[in-house]
């Protein structure tokens, strides 16, 4: 049986990551079920119904402060729902439903994995690097952003990759930090240089996920992508979050995903 829950929590910490992104840590009133990297939560303030739906956020990590379990989320401000937690004071009460959906295939741990993060796609991959640090897996983290200032926590990412014996590859579209170009191009370069992976895990904008899937196909490495789609319920019952699959059917992003084998997606229609 699935274990998901709807829990009360308190906004306990907040810090700025980049000009458009910030990190929040919630402290829960009660124990939270164990989460797999790639799983997400639906977050909403306890008070009021503007916005009406919860908002989906990938779990960036879990921990504990004092006796309370905590969860970190990383949020990019794009609209009213994402702006909320930047404005509400610490101490604001929230409801968090989760962990939800299918995460990355962490068990058994892949031998060597390329974690490919586009912008705010980082959180599930950072969580994955932390989770895999206890295993034999080596994780290279490809951290992409439009520009240097938008690279999310490069030091922390480097430490997380290096803890697994892997490396951080920062990439910016405009070349202001790390390699210039797209994050999937950097992955392609490393593969062309002879670096080998047994798995590619990606999270970011749809076109980037498609590109990652194509790179995997070229080098015959299985690719798992974490999808995003507008969600009302996050728990599989509204049928609002579907994404077309290559067999002409579709999946619910929240339940069959968000992490799926990239080769199953009908990228032409989905992008």
């Amino acid at each position, binding site marked *: 049986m699935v274990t*998901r*829950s709807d829990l009360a929590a308190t906004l306990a910490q907040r810090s700025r990551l980049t000009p458009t992104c910030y990190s929040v840590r919630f402290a829960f009133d009660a124990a939270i079920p164990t989460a797999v990297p790639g799983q997400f939560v639906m977050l*909403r303030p306890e008070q009021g119904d503007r916005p*009406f739906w919860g908002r989906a956020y990938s779990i960036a990590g879990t921990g504990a402060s004092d006796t309370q379990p905590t969860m970190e989320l990383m949020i990019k401000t794009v609209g009213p729902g994402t702006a909320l937690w930047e404005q509400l004071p610490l101490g604001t009460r929230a409801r968090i439903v989760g962990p939800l959906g299918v995460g990355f295939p962490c068990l058994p741990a892949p031998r060597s994995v390329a974690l490919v993060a586009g912008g705010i796609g980082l959180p599930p991959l950072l969580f994955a690097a932390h989770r895999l640090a206890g295993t034999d897996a080596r994780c290279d983290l490809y951290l992409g952003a439009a520009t240097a200032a938008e690279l999310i926590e490069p030091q922390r990412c480097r430490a997380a990759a290096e803890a697994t014996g892997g490396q951080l590859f920062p990439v910016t579209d405009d070349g202001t930090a790390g390699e210039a170009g797209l994050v999937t191009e950097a992955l392609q370069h490393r593969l062309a240089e002879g670096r080998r992976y047994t798995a590619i895990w990606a999270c970011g904008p749809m076109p980037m996920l498609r590109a990652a899937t194509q790179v995997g196909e070229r080098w015959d490495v299985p690719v798992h992508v974490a999808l995003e789609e507008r969600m*009302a*319920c996050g*728990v599989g*019952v509204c*049928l609002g979050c*579907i994404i077309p699959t290559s067999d002409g059917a579709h999946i619910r992003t929240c339940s069959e995903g968000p992490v799926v084998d990239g080769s199953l997606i009908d990228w032409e229609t989905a992008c």
Partner: protein
Amino acid sequence: MLTPDLHVNVGSLRLANPVIAASGTFGYGLDLDDFCPPEKLGGVVTKGLSPRPREGAPMPRIAETPSGMLNAIGLENIGVDVFCRDKLPALRERRAVVIVNVFGESAADYVRVIEHCESEAGIAGYELNVSCPNVSAGGIQFGHDPRTLEELTARCRVVTARPLWVKLSPNAPDLVGTARAAAAGGADAVSLVNTILGMAIDPLRRLPELARTFGGLSGPAILPIALRMVYEVHLALPELPVVGLGGIESGLDVVRFLLAGATAVQVGTATFRRPGVMLEILAELAAYCRDQGVERVATLTGALEARDA
């Protein structure tokens, strides 16, 4: 005071409590088992079932609105065969009260779904969703024309002895007329309301937010409208059991609908925000009864006092 008696009778159907999961918001009954086991509820209404599986509408299918949402899912469903084969057995085992929500593009479609279900045990009744366009009648909704609705109801009535509910559309020009038509066609109860026709626009992209332009509005935003409609139908047809819904999200909301004349209620959109909300609602309802000295929740139906004014 002992624990209040929450059971209600919707016509001949006895429910352990008046809180039913609404169609299209609770999957096929067990999707939210970890949050809300179906056997704890008065009943569960399935996602609308058609004779064959349906792909549904293109994306985007949902939009957020103030205290509500729009949906145009396009009646995606697995079809009645797959439901009976893959979903029903587990529900039966759990002794959940299952109400099959039925729809079709022709009267024959409705009859086909019901006939298929008739050979199965563990189905407590049917709810006809008449808010979809009647293809044989040129796209007019079954639920808008009283005559068409009475005919449809009557055709379904002859193929089943199980409880038959008709879910009325709040967009119908003559609500009471459609309720009367459903009763005349042999319905045991009417459910109201289905979603209210609405629209959302993305001002930056200058596009409707939904691929189908229009969608159905649900959630707390519509509660005052739904409550008024339940009251109107109950006033006009006091003998016809009404299953009330539209924006319910608390035990007090349930009481409001019962007082307005509903015999039972359904909870839809609230489940999206809090998947276990119906258990909380049941607890609140029991607490209300205890606090107010209500021994049997069934006595609340229609028990609204008149204003002196």
